């Protein structure tokens, strides 16, 4: 018997037991749908995180004071005093693979405009900060070198701050109070969005770091140094250059640990991608348990079917069906069931993940690769779980099978 004939016999047998076929197929449908949906959502989440992290700025390096290797505990920004503005200047002057450098200090405080007030992050930065963070200015002009040198009371505000303090009013030229110190708003930044959970980059005020150091905090050191490398391939060499410059400037002996930490956004990105990928695989594996259960369901029904149809098998053998023919017939039944279930499951899983993605605001892209994998997986489930019942059918003794009541 050739394949099309066998397929016809098998699909007819499935059609004759419609309800049973649907229920059995449901196991595979649910399993495949769960795998496809969870993997797609997982990929969507990691895509979203990737976008957010790269929104920090391309080729970005951040220098923190203190060493991560000191007891494995990072003391928090500003808790260790090692970074000075002269370090930033030295990096800018000496490191060849560095494009921009911005010193930075950070503070959280209350800001007031007339009767509106808002608690936000105040970043003291250099004039290069918008270039380093790939963060364009929406309105006005960012403060310049003279403002930094003179420690002028000027600031640029993020979209959230603009919304909270000014509402519909044009903020350029208005005076806001940060910890009771007046600052003139000179620029509004473009919206940038949230990084990770809750850290809204638009909820921020940028001012010359010198102003924040002297007038708000009364310090002369830095909390951070932002550095942009000249290209993505230069990020690692830039990191090495910064390290050697700072070690030299801080007089660190060759075997001693750094008293600073350089974070590179690419590393952070790959670390987070690793975690989300592991999570996706983990969720996918859990979902494939459903698929396994579906496969066992197929095996179970096929075994019942073989027993029920013992007489049919006997008749077919008597009129000339070989073992191979019987094996093929029952195997095809299982495979047809599982692949049709798989196709429906892929469609269902895709619809499900797109719907869920639109609810939790995650961009879902349906890739062909996981779909092809899911399809072959459902095929393999049919072969794997159909093989035993089909073999059992093909090994029946025709005499006993014919006599079976």
């Amino acid at each position, binding site marked *: 018997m050739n394949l099309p004939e066998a397929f016809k016999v098998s699909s007819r047998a499935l059609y004759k037991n419609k309800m049973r076929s649907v229920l059995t197929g449901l196991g595979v449908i649910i399993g495949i749908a769960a795998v496809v949906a969870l993997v797609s959502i997982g990929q969507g989440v990691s895509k979203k995180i990737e976008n957010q992290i790269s929104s920090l700025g391309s080729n970005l390096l951040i220098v923190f004071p203190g060493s991560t290797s000191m007891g494995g505990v990072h003391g928090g920004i500003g808790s260790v005093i090692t970074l000075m503005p002269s370090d930033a200047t030295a990096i800018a002057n000496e490191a060849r693979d560095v494009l921009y450098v911005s010193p930075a200090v950070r503070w959280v405080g209350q800001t007031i405009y007339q009767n509106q007030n808002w608690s936000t992050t105040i970043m003291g930065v250099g004039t290069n900060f918008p270039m380093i963070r790939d963060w364009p200015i929406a309105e006005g002009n960012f403060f310049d070198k003279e403002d930094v040198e003179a420690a002028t009371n000027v600031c640029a505000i993020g979209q959230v701050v603009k919304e909270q303090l000014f509402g519909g009013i044009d903020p350029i030229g208005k005076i806001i109070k940060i910890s009771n110190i007046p600052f003139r708003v000179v620029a509004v930044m473009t919206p940038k969005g949230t990084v990770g959970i809750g850290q809204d980059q638009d909820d921020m005020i940028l001012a010359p770091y010198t102003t924040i150091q002297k007038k708000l905090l009364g310090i002369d050191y830095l909390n951070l140094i932002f550095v942009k490398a000249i290209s993505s391939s230069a990020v690692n060499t830039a990191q090495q250059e910064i390290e050697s410059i700072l070690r030299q400037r801080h007089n660190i002996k060759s075997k001693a640990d750094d008293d600073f930490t350089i974070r590179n956004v690419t590393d952070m990105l790959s670390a987070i991608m690793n975690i989300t990928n592991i999570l996706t695989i983990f969720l996918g594996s859990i979902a494939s348990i459903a698929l396994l259960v579906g496969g066992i369901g197929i095996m179970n029904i096929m075994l019942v079917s073989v027993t029920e149809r013992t007489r049919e098998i006997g*008749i077919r053998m*008597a*009129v*000339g069906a070989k*073992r191979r023919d019987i094996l093929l017939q029952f195997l095809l039944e299982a495979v047809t069931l599982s692949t049709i279930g798989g196709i429906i499951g892929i469609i269902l899983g895709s619809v499900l993940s797109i719907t869920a993605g639109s609810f939790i605001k995650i961009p879902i892209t349906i890739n062909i690769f996981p779909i092809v994998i899911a399809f072959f997986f459902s095929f393999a489930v049919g072969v794997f779980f159909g093989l035993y019942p089909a073999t059992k059918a093909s090994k029946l003794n025709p005499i006993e099978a*014919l006599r079976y009541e």
Partner: protein
Amino acid sequence: MSQDIKQGNNGIVVKAVGLKKTYFLDAVAVPALKEVNLEIPKGSFVSITGASGSGKTTFMNILGCLDKPTEGKYILEGTDVSLLTPDRLAEIRNERIGFIFQNFNLLARTSAMENVELPLVYAGVARHERQKKALELLEMMGLKGFETHFPQQLSGGQQQRIAIARALVNSPSIILADEPTGNLDSKTSYEIMNILKRLNEEMGVTIILVTHEHDIAEYAQRIITFKDGLVISDTVNTKKDTL
């Protein structure tokens, strides 16, 4: 038409030489066939009778290539079947043997036409050719117009006629009828037996009939009686013409 003429003209279709079959039940040997030597010429109509447990069913299964002898040879049209693999036996059943069973053994929820086609499906015959042949035989069995009926919609006699059409569809060397009238009333039984008789007389089909009913056995030209795994009598049916 005497048996002798046929034998002379056509040769031997079934030859059993020292055929033995022993079943082992928990390592206890139970002999079902002790030693059977038989020759059945082509074109004959033979009845095999005997009480239950006489070995006639075992013999039938071996003749039908559904079972293999423990010892001895079964030669079907010159082929020693006792040495073949299960797959080769399936081919032999497909090409050379037509079965008719007591309980018809038709595929349920499958049309009359497709039941008749079944052996040709396994023989790899193309669809339109299968249908042509099946239609022809159904018509010959007086079942024109019942092609799309399912077995459960038909009477016992009609079902058995479908089974006969199926047995004939691949033009087999022998037709093995195992109690073909066992599930039928006497009127239908005669009808079926007359069909078999006609097939034998008009088309020269070799028919081996297994039955325990004497009046059915006497439709044949030759009656072989089994007892305790042995042939105890092998006679030319003299009453045949009186029926």
